[in-house]
């Protein structure tokens, strides 16, 4: 099987160009092609989503994730090609197109300056063109760095500000997108799956803002090139490295410190970034006066990337990430908790311009997630070894045979090994090794029927050997542009998911992935989307998007199973279903001294599992009917920037106990006090709202480089939002305690860019 897959990949890479170059018509002979890379002038970083348009025509293209664009079937002759991307100065280049030939044109765009006199400050928060696609948003690294955040800038916490994306609590960076749980979102870093993208037990994500170049969020309706999840995709790319000069960053904050360096070398560039928590001084200071301070409590991660230009048509990039969290915590006398978990990912990508209208990418990926908890209590030891190893090869082709069609096709094959071993009191209590080979292939075509009507259709086929499950996933999107300012869009897709995650919203340190198998079919769901996008003037952008999605055959680890030994694999799960629907609105001001956005989501989601809640649907905790996010950015002067973020959301759900009884349990000294609950999660906590303020001062660090001093106040009016209620069953009558989230929290970060 593997030899066949390799053969198929080689065929796609080597043979398609010859197939594409047959049968030119007379009209095609009179046209030519322009292609090349679009990058930032200051750094050489590729720009994803830049527009290249032949002035005065409807011919154009958008650069892909590698920064590559191609415009074919351009009539021979003199033309002006216009390159644009939000946050960069438009560039107009005169070109001469020769019939039957391909003109290679690599372009570098300059960032637009902060022209305070004209008060023309362009917001880089969202790329205007790319956001025009249904359900997709590009998040700029500027938003990530400048948005007030708890203790340090974080990629996922910035993503949580988008309409349709919710946070579980102040302590969690988990993404709850359009009613889905975090495991329904595929997280990719340089084309490699990341299985536990969290640090500090879920408080932060593993993505270092200094190392990131692009963050693209598909909230739903993602195209056929992505698969393996029924909800959404977060596609992240590391920086390639500054191709112009050596530069770097050093940042010191309350929780962690970061450093990065990037620069060019002969025919290439490199980037390296490292980040480590800096809690040791605080822990040392507390150890003298407070009991049970962890002996060790830190996280560290490193990102790196090397890019090399083999030829004008071939580029190689090698990317890696390594990170871990380590805790060594004597919680009480004779009670020791140790936890070590993290991820290692790597990818080797070969990008090749096969012909004027054909671009290929081949990527070899490896991803390892490890999680090794150890508990020693009362002389009894519980240990676990939990690893996920995922090795794969991907090949993608992008072919633009005409202005009407952009065809993408690809194949992704790999092997997945999940290892889990539990040892209790020296005995191995379980040791299942789950291995699965998988392969997925897709093809999709973006068909520009007329300048107003665009149809994108595709299909993805997936197969996992664990359980021998084969599934087809059709996708379709239709767009109508009655005017240049208005886009009406609708989409449908079928999605399958072959993995499920055992996790806890409050603590992600023990995350465990499980696979489909015999008797455990993949979960699946359909998504229906419709939306309107309107740009009446350049400064303003309006969006209205509705969605409905169902979830079938949700398989999750049955929380009521106390011990898995001796049970068949399929007996470990409970199977349920769910649905979610909602409407999202976004109003954004892109330019001006005052810019930002306000997003509102109205939505609801439900789940149902047998023997739970009388087999009836119930809302999970993260069901929040209303969710409003306001992000405002104001340039006080050339040196001062102020940012405010306000969030309001309906209170999360919780289960209200209605009655109680008492049972003299023969296995216990004291009686049990079981609760009688009614409908699960039918009550709501008080509404959540919080205001974060941030001020950034731009200056110079002794003339060696630029500096940024960020002063932030999280929860400026110290709203003590409720996280959950904790009921004390042993009190009589029972009592309820309120567990609250963060109080007002100041934060300071100093960053030097050299």
């Amino acid at each position, binding site marked *: 099987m593997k030899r066949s897959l390799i053969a198929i990949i080689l065929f796609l890479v080597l043979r398609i160009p010859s197939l594409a170059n047959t049968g030119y018509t007379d009209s095609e002979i009179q046209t030519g092609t322009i292609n090349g890379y679009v990058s930032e002038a200051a750094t050489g970083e590729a720009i994803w989503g830049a527009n290249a348009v032949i002035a005065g025509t409807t011919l154009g293209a958008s650069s892909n994730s590698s920064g590559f664009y191609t415009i074919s079937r351009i009539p021979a002759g003199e033309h002006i090609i216009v390159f644009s991307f939000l946050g960069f100065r438009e560039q107009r280049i005169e070109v001469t197109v020769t019939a039957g030939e391909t003109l290679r044109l690599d372009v570098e765009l300059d960032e637009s300056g902060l022209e305070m006199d004209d008060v023309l400050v362009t917001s880089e928060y969202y790329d205007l063109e790319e956001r025009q696609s249904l359900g997709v948003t590009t998040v700029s690294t500027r938003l990530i760095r400048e948005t007030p955040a708890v203790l340090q800038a974080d990629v996922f916490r910035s993503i949580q500000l988008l309409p349709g994306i919710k946070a579980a609590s102040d302590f969690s960076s988990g993404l709850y997108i359009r009613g889905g749980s975090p495991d329904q979102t595929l997280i990719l870093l340089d084309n490699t799956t990341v299985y536990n993208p969290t640090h500090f037990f879920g408080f932060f994500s593993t993505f270092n803002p200094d190392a990131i170049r692009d963050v693209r969020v598909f909230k739903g309706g993602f195209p056929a090139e992505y698969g393996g999840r029924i909800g959404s995709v977060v596609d992240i790319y590391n920086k390639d490295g500054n191709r112009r000069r050596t530069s770097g960053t050093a940042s010191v904050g309350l929780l962690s410190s970061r450093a990065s360096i990037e620069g060019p070398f002969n025919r290439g560039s490199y980037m390296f970034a490292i980040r480590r928590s800096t809690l040791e001084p605080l822990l040392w200071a507390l150890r003298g006066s407070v009991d049970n301070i962890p002996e060790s409590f830190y996280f560290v991660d490193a990102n790196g990337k090397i890019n090399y230009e083999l030829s004008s048509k071939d580029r190689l990039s090698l990317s890696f990430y390594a990170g871990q969290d380590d805790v060594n915590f004597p919680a009480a*006398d004779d009670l020791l908790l140790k936890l070590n978990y993290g991820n290692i990912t790597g990818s080797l990508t070969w990008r090749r311009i096969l012909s004027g209208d054909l671009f290929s990418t081949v990527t070899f990926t490896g991803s390892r997630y490890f999680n090794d908890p150890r508990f020693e209590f009362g002389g009894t030891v519980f240990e676990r070894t939990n690893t996920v190893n995922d090795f794969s090869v991907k090949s993608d082709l992008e072919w633009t045979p005409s202005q009407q069609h952009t065809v993408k096709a690809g194949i992704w094959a790999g092997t997945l090994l999940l290892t889990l071993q539990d040892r*209790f009191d020296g005995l191995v209590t379980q040791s299942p090794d789950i291995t699965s080979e998988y392969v997925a292939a897709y093809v999709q075509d973006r068909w520009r029927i007329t300048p107003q009507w665009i149809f994108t259709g595709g299909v993805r086929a997936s197969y996992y050997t664990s359980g021998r499950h084969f599934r087809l996933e059709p996708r379709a999107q239709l767009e109508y542009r009655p005017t240049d300012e208005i886009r009406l869009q609708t989409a449908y897709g079928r999605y399958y998911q072959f993995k499920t995650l055992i996790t806890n919203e409050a603590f992600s340190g023990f995350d465990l992935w499980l696979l489909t198998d015999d008797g455990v079919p993949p979960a699946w769901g359909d998504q229906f989307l419709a939306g309107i996008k309107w740009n009446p003037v350049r400064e303003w952008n309006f969006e209205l998007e509705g969605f409905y999605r169902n979830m079938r055959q949700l398989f999750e680890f049955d929380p009521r199973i106390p011990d898995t030994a001796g049970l068949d694999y399929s007996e470990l799960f409970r199977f349920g279903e769910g649905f979610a629907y909602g409407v999202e609105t976004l109003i954004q001001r892109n330019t001006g001294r005052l810019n930002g956005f306000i997003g509102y989501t109205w939505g609801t989601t*439900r789940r149902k599992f047998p023997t*739970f809640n009388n087999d009836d649907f119930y809302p999970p905790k993260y069901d929040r009917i209303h969710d409003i996010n306001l992000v405002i950015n104001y340039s006080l002067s050339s040196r001062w920037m102020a940012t405010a973020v306000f969030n309001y959301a309906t209170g999360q759900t919780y289960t209200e106990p209605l009655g109680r*009884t008492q049972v003299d349990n023969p296995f216990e000294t004291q009686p049990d006090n079981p609760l009688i609950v009614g409908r699960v999660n039918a009550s709501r906590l008080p509404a959540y709202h919080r205001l974060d303020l941030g001020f950034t001062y731009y200056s110079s660090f002794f003339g060696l480089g630029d500096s940024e001093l960020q002063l932030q106040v999280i929860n400026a009016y110290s709203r003590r939002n409720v996280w959950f209620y904790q009921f004390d069953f042993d009190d009589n009558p029972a009592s309820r305690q309120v567990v609250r989230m963060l109080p007002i929290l100041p934060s300071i970060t100093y960053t030097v860019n050299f």
Partner: protein
Amino acid sequence: MKSLNSILIRTVFLSMVVLFAFAACDPYTQDGFEEQMVVEAFLTAGDPLPSVKLSKTLPFDQEYTFEAAALSGLDVRLIRTTNSGATEAVLEYVESDQRGVYVAADESRTVTPGLVYRLEVREDPMSSPVLTSETFVPGDFDLISTNGNSFIYQGPDQFEPTFTISFYPGRQNYYVASTLALDPDNFPLTPFYAGFLDEDDDPDQFLRVSSGIINEGNYEINEDNTITIKLPWIAIAYYGPNEVSFYAIDTNLYDYIRSLSIQLGGPSTLSPGQIENILWNVEGGIGIFGSRTGIISEIEVVNPFAP
């Protein structure tokens, strides 16, 4: 274009109005307290028939006492049947001096392993049962041997009894290990449990410690079709003499213990604030009508730090 834009503005505005109007309705609302009958009875193989306690649930915010919740004047009977469902005996119960507590009329009767007991509660002897539950008493569970009766705490040797494999139809066996301190007045707590005890805490809370549910699948079956289990040190709360019990439990107890553990906040995947209901296995009410078969030994746990 101007008219299209204005049409669009109106469409978006109207959509928002409809949306807000619709959003005010949440059809999933909180229900209220409903009183339910509660049964509590535990059958132990070889022991006399247990008492059956009948009560009602009380509102969550009300102080609970059994006396306030007890249900009196009910007709209670146990029907003992074979695996095939044939009735072997009908065991009558009478209300004791304590309101809500019903005892077997024939106190000489004992619980027989390997048989099914069905509980029926009626409001009067001639009416249909208002509450029923059924249990299969695990059978064939006998202690064969042990590896000693004195062990140094956290020393190289742990208590390892060997016993026959219990019989339960249709599934592997589930066990619960339990220790009972026999002389807590003269022997201290082990360090692990002593660390949990504050000045205001009741030290008796650790007199009996249980392991939680242990699947038979954790252990290899010996060549002679027996099982040897190692008692973990975490199960020992007090030094000195301890009564060590291993019980094979029925499905009602299995469901009750595992669902109660989740409800009380044991390790789980549930979000904070989400409370699961208990798996009761009672028709017409709630509670626990469960059975177990056990083996009991007595061991001495030696304090390695004692002078």
